[in-house]
């Protein structure tokens, strides 16, 4: 909880995001260390090799993809003369052996220097620092929306399992699950933006510029992402909840005179939410960099847009930086899920303690 406070207070006070995230993480880890040190250390130990291999893998994919000349020509333009190409290759050390290039990059990365883009000469950290908050916003909106839709729908469907209400909700979920987000986005834009002219079709407005415009611009992208997510969550929750409702402690609750609503929300929801929680958390990581198409369609300058631009433009230091940040986020998220589990399920808490 303290971590969330740091995130929010930091945001208001205006501390850079990377510092805020770092602080928040330190608080969480410190909290976990107090209760269960060895477990936390063990998990942190796996982080390092994972990151090394992930970066090595992406570095390999990027640098071995094309010859340095192709990169140089792509960056400098097709009209570039041979001297300029050679100069570019030497300046950016593109002709060095693969491993040496990687180690050069790594030695910078461990001290926080992710390099400078040789395409636009802007520091990679700076570019990512600008893009991440935007992607985070999109992720948070989409996830909140998905939860707001899926939790009541899932609870209701489980309550009416194998009856008409369940059939309607489950069929709708299957339908939304089957609409790719870019198709949904395209038609939402067509209907709500182009046809009815209710919402803007593209671009991004910062929260501090105009709160209303910000949400107007983020609504369609968030909905496009949220529908398939909410279908997934609803199905997971329904499945787990149907089996929870077969448990005898539900009968106990009923025999106490607890109302159906309280049985569902008070007794059944929490023990049914573990799978949902896992998938939710994993998605949080994936969505930060994985909402590529949505960011492209709506022209939102987030991580997805950066990544696509970097891949298409051979700007591989930017890609490398983005992948590192995402991979760190992914591993840390998995770690946080475990901590959250212990909060939700007291049984785990005591096994570890």
């Amino acid at each position: 909880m303290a971590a969330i406070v740091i995130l929010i207070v930091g945001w208001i006070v205006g501390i850079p995001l990377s510092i805020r995230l770092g602080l928040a993480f330190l608080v969480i880890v410190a909290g976990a260390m107090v209760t269960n040190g060895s477990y936390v250390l063990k998990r942190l130990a796996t982080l390092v090799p994972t990151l090394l291999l992930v970066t090595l893998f992406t570095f390999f994919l990027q640098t071995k993809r094309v010859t340095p000349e192709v990169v140089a020509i792509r960056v400098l333009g097709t009209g570039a003369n041979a001297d300029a190409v050679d100069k570019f290759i030497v300046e950016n050390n593109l002709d060095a052996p693969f491993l040496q290039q990687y180690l050069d990059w790594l030695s910078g990365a461990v001290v926080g220097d992710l390099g400078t883009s040789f395409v636009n000469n802007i520091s990679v950290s700076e570019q990512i620092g600008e893009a991440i908050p935007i992607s985070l916003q999109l992720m948070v909106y989409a996830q909140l929306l998905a939860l707001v839709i899926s939790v009541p729908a899932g609870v209701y469907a489980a309550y009416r399992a194998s009856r008409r209400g369940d059939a309607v909700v489950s069929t709708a979920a299957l339908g939304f699950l089957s609409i790719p987000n870019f198709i949904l986005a395209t038609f939402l834009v067509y209907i709500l933006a182009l046809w009815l002219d209710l919402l803007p079709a593209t671009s991004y407005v910062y929260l501090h510029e105009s709160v209303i415009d910000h949400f107007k611009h983020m609504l369609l992208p968030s909905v496009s992402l949220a529908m398939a997510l909410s279908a997934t969550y609803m199905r997971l929750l329904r499945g787990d909840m149907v089996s929870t409702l077969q448990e005898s402690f539900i009968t106990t609750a009923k025999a106490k005179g607890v109302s159906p609503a309280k049985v569902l929300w008070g007794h059944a929801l929490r023990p049914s939410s573990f799978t949902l929680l896992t998938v939710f958390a994993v998605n949080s990581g994936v969505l930060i960099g994985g909402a590529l198409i949505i960011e492209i369609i709506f022209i939102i300058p987030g991580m997805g847009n950066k990544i696509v631009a970097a891949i298409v433009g051979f700007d591989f230091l930017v890609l490398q930086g983005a992948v590192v940040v995402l991979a760190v986020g992914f591993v840390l998220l998995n770690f946080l899920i475990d901590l959250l589990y212990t909060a939700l399920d007291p049984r785990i808490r005591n096994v570890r303690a």
Partner: protein
Amino acid sequence: MSNAEPKGNSERLLEVEGLSTKFLTARGTVTAVDNVSFTLDRGKTLGVVGESGSGKTVLSRSIMNLLPRKNVERTGSVRFDGREVLNLSDKDMRHIWGKEMAMVFQDPMTSLNPVMRIGKQITESLRIHLGVDKKTARQEAIELLRSVKIPEPEKRVDEYPHQLSGGMRQRVMIAVALACGPRMLFADEPTTALDVTVQAQILNLLAEQQRDRFMAMVLVTHDLGVVAGRADEIAVMYGGRLVEKAPTATLFRSMKHPYTEALFRSIPRIENPSHTRLLAIGGRPPDLVNPPKGCAFADRCPRVQTMCREERPKLVNAITAGHSYACFYPTGTPEGDKALEDNIVAGVPAALEVQITDAPSGI
């Protein structure tokens, strides 16, 4: 409650009349409880005994109205404190559940919510039915835990079920059931899932609480030994029907039904020499989808005669008051003894089993 002035006999708490429960399934209609009648006075205990699948669990749930509504058909009458409750909706039942009638379930591992603190599970019904505020409810919970003899109740109240042993959990379950001071308690195999050493403690606790609170109790079990010293009256169920019912002492003195007898023989007894063979009841419980035309126990009965397979025996009264049974050839009657002898001569397997085990102990 609207029934401030209970009608009829004020001693009577529960009157069950011709109760039947049918499940409609794809395979056909399953008659899990078939025309069961009994009465229970305030503060008294009825032991319902039968093996798995005899319908005893469904019986207690039918009375308490805890079965699903869809594809379940219940007929007959259940009067609780003079009020008909069989056809009450869940909404109306909610005023009775927990407050008037409560239930202790078989397996305390699964019948307590694993992710909810014990205190909350106990106080939940207090808060619903009596509108007690949080702080008072917590005090009540601690008192309840103390009364079911849980050590350090102030500490336990904030713990989760998995932190307690099986026996402790069942005590918590009892505390949950007792919270609102119900007048009627159903205990559905309350000790089956527990360690043998804990069973007696739990049963004694139930008996003690029942006495202190003047509750009526239906104690459901498969073990005749469990109800022997604790029930005022015993009802034996087989294949969804009552086959024998009597005050406890009477039943043990002169049991009439061969099934009761078979259950009795399957209890290990201390006075017997060790290595005495216990009599298992051969065969399986009857198919409830296509019940046999005659007596449900016929296929496993040592006294079975042609008539038993043709006609269903009705519950008839014995000479002793309050004793009734459903058998054409009851134990301890000339007809019954003759039937057994005939079957031994004819080599009916169930009868031979009885002969072999009877020989050394010489009942």
